């Protein structure tokens, strides 16, 4: 049963105002094109969850899509602070819920595993726990010592970018895996954006590489270059220049809105956005191929 549809259709059908959204990807495979489509479709009051909000949520917050942020590190990775998110938080205009990376990922692991909570060992750092009622304690029934707990996170919808998927949604990822698997299984609905849609025989020739199975996928969209300015291992490089530029752009609200006008509202889809980046950028982000050694599964 094919689940192929356009990203526009997938967002229209599965992302609603007020939803808890998790656009997955730790630095790698961040589905920027999906964030831009959500901005174009004018979604509001979203709760945006990501370990690292990154530029994708800075842009969605700037566009007024967000009511609340759930995160564990708000920065422009390797550059500095996320100016929009930071100023909205400091101004008290954006609600937030905060964890350490491990606390955030443990919430996803609990959600994916169908557990009511996950224990974590103590860290002796008291302040986050004191400020977040979701972080609790339970006594280990074997040693009697207390462990810290977090509850499951079940996003209404997860958006996950992958290198390749078949039309049913069996998806393969390589390179940094971040929290992709946990988010997919924790979420109520999963939208897959893929660099390539391949025949199922490609996927089934290497089942150990399949991180996300079709049975939890709602929609599959073919979106080449979906991750720019983030990257897709083996397909194109991270656009560090853009990450540095964003820091300048967001120094002024006007420049930020102008950027959104030109690069999000001003283009119709990911393809037009990519073409607009131009030859020189395409060249700069090109990757020299380096292939994995062969693996023999055998015919049985």
């Amino acid at each position: 049963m094919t689940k192929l549809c356009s990203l526009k259709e997938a967002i229209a059908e599965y992302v609603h105002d007020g939803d808890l959204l998790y656009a997955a990807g730790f630095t790698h495979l961040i589905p920027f094109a999906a964030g831009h489509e959500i901005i174009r479709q004018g979604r509001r009051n979203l709760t945006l969850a990501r370990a690292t909000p990154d530029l994708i949520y800075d842009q969605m917050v700037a566009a007024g899509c967000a009511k609340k942020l759930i995160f564990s590190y708000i920065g422009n990775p390797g550059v500095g602070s996320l100016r929009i998110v930071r100023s909205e938080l400091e101004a008290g205009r954006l609600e937030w819920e905060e964890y350490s990376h491990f606390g955030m990922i443990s919430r996803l692991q609990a959600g994916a595993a169908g557990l009511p909570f996950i224990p974590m060992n103590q860290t002796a750092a008291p302040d986050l726990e004191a400020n977040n009622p979701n972080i609790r304690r339970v006594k280990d029934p074997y040693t009697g010592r207390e462990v810290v707990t977090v509850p499951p996170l079940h996003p209404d919808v997860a958006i996950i970018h992958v290198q390749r998927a078949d039309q049913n949604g069996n998806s393969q990822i390589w390179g940094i895996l971040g929290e992709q698997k946990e988010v997919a299984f924790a979420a109520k609905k999963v939208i897959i954006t893929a660099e390539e849609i391949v025949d199922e025989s490609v996927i089934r020739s290497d089942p150990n590489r399949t991180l996300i199975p079709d049975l939890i996928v709602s929609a599959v969209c073919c979106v080449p270059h979906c991750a720019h300015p983030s990257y897709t291992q083996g397909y194109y490089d991270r656009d560090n220049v853009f990450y540095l530029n964003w820091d300048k752009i967001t120094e002024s609200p006007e420049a930020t809105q102008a950027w959104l006008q030109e690069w999000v509202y001003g283009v119709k889809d990911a393809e037009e956005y990519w073409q607009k980046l131009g030859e020189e950028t395409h060249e700069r982000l090109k990757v020299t191929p380096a292939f994995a050694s062969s693996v023999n599964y055998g015919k049985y």
Partner: protein
Amino acid sequence: MEAITYTSSELMCINAARLLRDGDVVFVGVGLPNLACNLARRTHAPNLQMIYEAGVIGARPSRLPLSIGDPTLVSGAASVCGMYDIFSLYLQRGNVDVGFLGGAQIDRFGNINATVIGDYGKPKVRLPGSGGSQEIAAWANRCYIITPHQKRRFPEKVDFTTSAGFLHGRTEREASGVRGKGPLVVVTNLGLMEPDENGELILTALHPGCTVEQVRENTGWSVKTAASIRQTEPIQQNDLQLLREELDPQGIYLKGGG
């Protein structure tokens, strides 16, 4: 012979590299820690194992990663796993020897604030938050901090404890039962600070040309000094060469006074 010149960042980076032992498994951050680890691996610690919170084990970056999730960390790495695994199977399980930490504030007992300046609910300045540091500070066997020596960075008490140092004293950390030994060295542009028997950071070494007075002026509490203050080894030309020509040719992290 003419005198060797270097930036504070180069000075801190090289001194941080000296803290690493061959075979150490290091939970690496971007910036100076990444440079320090790569420098150590190219010099006295060829078997250093660099692992990254993104889920990369045994990375051999062939270029300077701007972000902690750069693709160069993956290409040529020994293994890649998900973030839940890197924090549980590696860090929580006790497989990490060294963690590098940094923050806007480090206090007298090595507690770190990377979360907020002011009140948490109404922050004057909203900082990035913990990321991986809350667990690294607790569970890595040894932690090192690299930071420029400035009064505002070294308050008597942090506004918010993002990562535990020795809390209000060594006994309090030990009572908490966390496995790691806590922050063992703070590397600054003036020298090294290390915890005393009470877990209070005291001055134990000075870089060539730096003075106790400079340290006092730039520390937010009346910093104690070790019975005998060591002087750190002079910077060697070959280390600078590696840093400038191979590890950070554009000087992205090393040009700055840090």
